[in-house]
């Protein structure tokens, strides 16, 4: 297996890695000390900009640029809010940071607060992640006892407080404005934008919302220097290493650190250990959480024009394109959370789509009619198809419903439902036709029985 540098995961393998003692023996808080005692806040922000770190929560927005959106002349201090709602199906990376190295996140919060002038940070964790919550609370307590969190971190007059806030079970609270409403004790319904959180966020104050992994990368960026950190990547304008997840039909599912720009082939066959069953080849892969459109290994990049962003990979399989925010957008999908769901040829794609549309119809917050009605309708039509009660026209109906959901809503949830739906329909239309005629065959997620040690 490829030997990639361990940067954000450097402490993962250590016994008791979640304790201050062990974390500090292995470098924790040295970057925060340096940032507080030897750097101006603006210098910290410059390093983060130079690091070219793209937000790890799914949208891939450059973190350095986002911090720059905070108004310079605000009379109230901004808040830092950490998005630890991790709920996008297929995504399980942030949890590893919170459980195995909570001090890395706490240290990142401290440095980010110093950089943007925040004094209070809320870490919004979904309530199901009990171990994450306990370890973060314990880490904050330990860091407070040491004085790193408190009135004068590292002897510098910049008071800091970090609080864990528990969610209550709603995927939509991962959307940043829904998260802010939920933090304020309200229903987790997304807000109309503008105003953007940078201007009017938590409790009406300017607010930076960042993903757990984004902020946990900041200590390494300061320690190594933005440019050196950025250069770990194989791609331009998308720096560093990052956490890759791989689940589904691979031999060694899990979370792995690797440079930005790894290929899906490497993720599946190298880090993921290859396909689960030797006789069941790769059929499809959802690259970065369920909201990112599916890819097929047999599809080749068609970019003969030298000006095309994917020209360098012209004629290669989609799973040989480096995984980056911009490359995957050019490929017609998204990098999302960089956690792939791998499916072998035993999987019926209509059944896979039904599973996911069940999720979206359950999780729509219901504020916008196209989303509330559309998600429910997509799921109903897919149920009918799978049960053998469908008609051929249902396929076009699915396309219509999905098209009508796009671009018409308060938040990106509706697009994040419609895009993967359209992806399944485009790439596996033949399969939808078969299912429309005869329903889904039994064992259409057949590998499952084998995986549990049963027969199939």
């Amino acid at each position, binding site marked *: 297996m490829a030997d990639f540098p361990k940067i954000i995961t450097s402490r993962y393998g250590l016994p008791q890695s979640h304790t201050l003692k062990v974390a500090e023996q292995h470098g924790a808080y040295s970057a925060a000390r340096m940032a507080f005692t030897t750097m101006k806040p603006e210098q910290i922000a410059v390093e983060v900009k130079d690091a070219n770190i793209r937000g790890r929560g799914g949208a891939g927005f450059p973190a350095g640029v986002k911090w720059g959106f905070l108004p310079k002349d605000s009379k109230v201090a901004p808040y830092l809010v950490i998005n630890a709602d991790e709920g996008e199906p*297929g995504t399980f990376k942030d949890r590893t940071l919170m459980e195995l190295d909570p001090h890395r996140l706490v240290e990142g919060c401290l440095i980010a607060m110093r950089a943007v002038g925040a004094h209070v940070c809320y870490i919004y964790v979904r309530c*199901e992640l009990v171990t994450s919550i*306990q370890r973060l609370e*314990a880490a904050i307590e330990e860091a407070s006892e040491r004085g790193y969190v408190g009135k004068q971190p590292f002897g510098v007059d910049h008071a800091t407080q970090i609080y864990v806030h528990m969610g209550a079970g709603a*995927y939509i609270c991962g959307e940043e404005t829904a998260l802010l409403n939920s933090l304020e004790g309200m229903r987790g319904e997304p807000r109309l934008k503008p105003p953007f959180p940078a201007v009017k966020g938590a409790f009406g104050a300017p607010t930076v919302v960042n993903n757990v992994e984004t902020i946990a990368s900041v200590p390494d960026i300061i320690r190594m220097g933005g440019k050196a950190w950025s250069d770990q990547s194989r791609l331009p304008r998308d720096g560093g290493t990052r956490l890759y997840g791989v689940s*589904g039909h691979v031999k060694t599912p899990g979370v792995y650190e690797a440079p930005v720009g790894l290929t899906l082939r490497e993720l599946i066959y190298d880090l993921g250990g290859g396909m689960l069953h030797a006789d069941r080849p790769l059929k499809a892969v959802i690259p970065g959480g369920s909201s990112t459109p599916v890819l097929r290994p047999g599809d080749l990049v068609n970019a003969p024009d030298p000006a095309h962003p994917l020209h360098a990979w012209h004629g290669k399989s989609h799973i040989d394109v480096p995984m980056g925010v911009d490359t995957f957008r050019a490929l017609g999908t998204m990098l999302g959370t960089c956690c792939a769901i791998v499916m072998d040829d035993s999987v019926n794609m209509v059944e896979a789509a039904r599973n996911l549309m069940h999720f979206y119809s359950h999780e729509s917050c219901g504020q916008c009619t196209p989303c509330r009605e559309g998600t429910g309708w997509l799921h109903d039509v897919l149920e009918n198809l799978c049960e053998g009660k469908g008609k051929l026209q249902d396929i076009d109906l699915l396309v219509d419903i999905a098209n009508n959901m796009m671009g018409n809503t308060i938040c990106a949830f509706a697009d994040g439902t419609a895009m993967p739906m359209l992806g399944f329909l485009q790439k596996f239309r033949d399969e939808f036709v078969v299912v429309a005629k005869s329903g889904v065959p039994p064992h259409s997620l057949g590998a499952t029985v084998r995986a549990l040690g049963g027969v199939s």
Partner: protein
Amino acid sequence: MTFTLSVESEKIVDELLTRYPTQRAACLPLLHLCQRQEGWVSPGVVAYVAKRLGMPTSEVTGVVTFYTMYHQQPVAPNVVWVCRTLSCDLRGGREIQKHLEKRLGCGVGGTSKDGKFSLKTAECLAACGQAPMVQINDDFHENLTLDGLDRIIDELSAKTAAAAPASGDAAQKAEPADAAARVRAKTLMGIGNS
């Protein structure tokens, strides 16, 4: 019907209120705290939270109904959440669910015949790489096999027979960094208080 929080928990509420610039922001954590004591969000809990935070009861109800993890009906001492989302489904989540339905003698949304377990489905619980998985009370059980699942249910069943609700276990198992931190983690989040 009236609900009151234990004296210790009231102290936690006092600290919670110092964390936010508004009282209302304590609504979600306070509901969690009450649910840990009461087992569910009863009308008494709603009235208490409304009064404690100075919110109209209708708004507390609006919050409660929005979120999946607040039980609006009483539940059994053990709540079993089977993850049904794609990564788990690909690795046998459906078989796990069927097995539980058979074993517990109830469907999803129901309660086992002996009253010890409530069965529910969950959406992706951020354990996709360890599929299939279930969450029972505060604990994740990952990389499940049917035999392994049976053992977990047997164990919990035996424990529950001794009449001790099982939700305090996770706090002991997770070994936070030191005793003081453990106490804080347990108390502030209400984890282990039941």
